[in-house]
């Protein structure tokens, strides 16, 4: 090749083509999405998060959670994400407009986290028991920051999406929980839990031997007022939950686990993943927790640890601020709000069983025949 000019021009031209085509043009086309709202400007989704959420996202980035966990639900015609109950609709660009950085992820050595906050039980999502609970041994005591990110957001309009979702009990989310979680603690009603428990067993075949099957778990849980409130149809906290007394609501000697995907559960899971899921491949993040001597009373934030993980007598393990932010971040990950552009994708191809539209039957029915 002779002459530098054509070479230079070509080198610049080809790259400019790609730069404009794959970054500038998309930015022009969809780089300025607005939140979705209805006619009155209410029911806004998504809403900006702040405070602990942002810091939690930084902790998420710093510790490389993205290398094993994705945060995107693929459409039903392409993948089994929706059948795996990672969400009841596909993710859409609008879901992420307030996130920075965006952790779409490229690897699933762990579960998808796009909707991890939506799987939390209603008790955790609602701010009610947090404030009402005495600072004793309530399981939600340690989760107060996580359970109510709304105050950080400022206006009550920015209430946590999880909370917003709870009074609108779509059978999809509620029914989905047992299958994915393998724990009926998140089921909306005892009836649903009972119906779903056979379906839940494939999802929960991993708990260590000796752990009771999900069905009995519900029974054990029932004495707990929190769990009872949990089971109220609609996921609404019953008035009685405010009067719960101190003491672990969960029979520690039997299970020792807080409700699946609750903030307390996340803390125990981060501290000791294999105490919750024997097969887990996740490293423990103990450096996000402090072991300290109990000064006067056991802190409300202290983790409920069992077995070899439990701190010695007179000691307790409490989350650092980073750990609390990380859990608050996860509890706010929730794409369960409907989006008009993502709805159409569900039923498009013939193969899809349109789970986005009617997840109820599939949640109750499809896992049941398995095993």
């Amino acid at each position, binding site marked *: 090749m002779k002459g530098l000019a054509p070479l230079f021009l070509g080198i610049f031209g080809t790259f400019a083509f790609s730069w404009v085509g794959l970054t500038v043009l998309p930015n022009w086309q969809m780089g300025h999405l607005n939140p979705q709202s209805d006619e*009155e400007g209410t029911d806004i989704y998504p809403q900006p998060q702040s405070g602990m959420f942002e810091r939690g996202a930084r902790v998420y980035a710093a510790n490389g959670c993205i290398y094993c966990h994705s945060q995107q639900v693929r459409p039903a015609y392409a993948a089994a994400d929706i059948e795996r109950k990672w969400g009841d609709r596909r993710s859409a*660009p609008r879901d992420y407009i307030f996130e920075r950085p965006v952790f779409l992820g490229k690897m699933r050595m762990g579960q998808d986290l796009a909707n991890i906050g939506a799987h939390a039980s209603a008790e955790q999502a609602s701010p009610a028991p947090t*404030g009402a609970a005495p600072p004793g041994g309530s399981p939600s005591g340690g989760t107060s920051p996580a359970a109510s990110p709304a105050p950080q957001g400022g*206006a009550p309009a920015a209430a946590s999406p999880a909370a917003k979702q709870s*009074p609108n009990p779509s059978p999809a989310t509620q029914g989905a929980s047992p299958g994915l979680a393998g724990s009926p603690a998140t089921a909306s009603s005892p009836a649903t839990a009972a119906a779903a428990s056979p379906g839940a067993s494939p999802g929960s075949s991993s708990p260590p031997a000796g752990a009771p099957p999900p069905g009995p778990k519900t029974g054990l849980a029932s004495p707990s007022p929190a769990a009872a409130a949990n089971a109220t149809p609609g996921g609404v906290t019953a008035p009685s939950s405010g009067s719960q007394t101190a003491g672990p609501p969960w029979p520690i000697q039997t299970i020792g686990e807080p409700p699946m995907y609750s903030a307390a559960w996340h803390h125990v899971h981060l501290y000791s993943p294999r105490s919750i899921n024997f097969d887990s491949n996740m490293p423990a993040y103990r450096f996000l927790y402090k072991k300290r001597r109990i000064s006067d009373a056991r802190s409300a934030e202290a983790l409920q640890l069992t077995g070899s993980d439990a701190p010695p007598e007179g000691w307790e393990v409490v989350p650092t601020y980073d750990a609390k932010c990380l859990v608050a971040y996860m509890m706010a990950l929730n794409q369960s709000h409907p989006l008009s552009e993502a709805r159409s994708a569900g039923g498009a191809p013939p193969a899809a069983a349109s789970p986005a539209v009617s997840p109820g039957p599939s949640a109750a029915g499809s896992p049941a025949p398995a095993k």
Partner: protein
Amino acid sequence: MNEEPKEPARVGQGMDYGEQADVQQVHAAVQREKREPRVGAEPLSIWLIAIYGLAIFFGGAYLGRYSGNFSSGGLDPMGAPPPAKKAVAGPAGGEQAAELSPHDRGKKVFSANCQTCHQANGQGVPGQYPPLAGSEFTTGGSRRMGMIVLKGLQGPVKVKGQQYGTAVMQPWDKTLTDKQIADVMTYERSEWGNSASPLTPEQIAALRKELANHPESFTEHDILAAPDEDLSGGAPAGGAPAKPGEASKPGEPPKPHG
């Protein structure tokens, strides 16, 4: 192949820069090296051109088939038409919403703004957030309720015989429009077994004007000091949720109370 220079005079001399600094003593590696690469000029083979054609064909076909119409909303690669309803309330969405009754619109406003505290079943949270279901403020005259919604409430308050007071209700006059407040109040007054009169935006507008100079939240004392009456200009008390037509009927001009 036999291009290697044969210059025995130099071979074996200047192998090592470390020992002989004179660069003129050419390094053996350089000596035996072939000359700099050149380029031949073989023509393209027909097979290669066929491969080009195939790649361009399949690439183009793939792009055409899975382009999703090149639209920003076309998440589906099969090019399904983008949803008719625009994400941000478009004309189609507007029509739908227009058909909603004030009660249904109020329900949306409620779920977006109120139910975090007062809960979807209107029961509130014991000790913290007072209930709306059966509450004397909700089911009573719309004036007291409107004052609370517009300007907020703080301090202890007694509802249905229970004492509340740890939480503060924020004023909504900055956040919500007259119509939204009227809708949500209409909803609250006719839901959960409540059956009080619906509200119109005009009533709220009048009350808003009236309270414009009231700076901060009311206390229970302020509220109880106000008359337990309906705002003027509304539908008769105890009525069912208004029909869409009725709700948008302009009320009488507001008459500020002394």
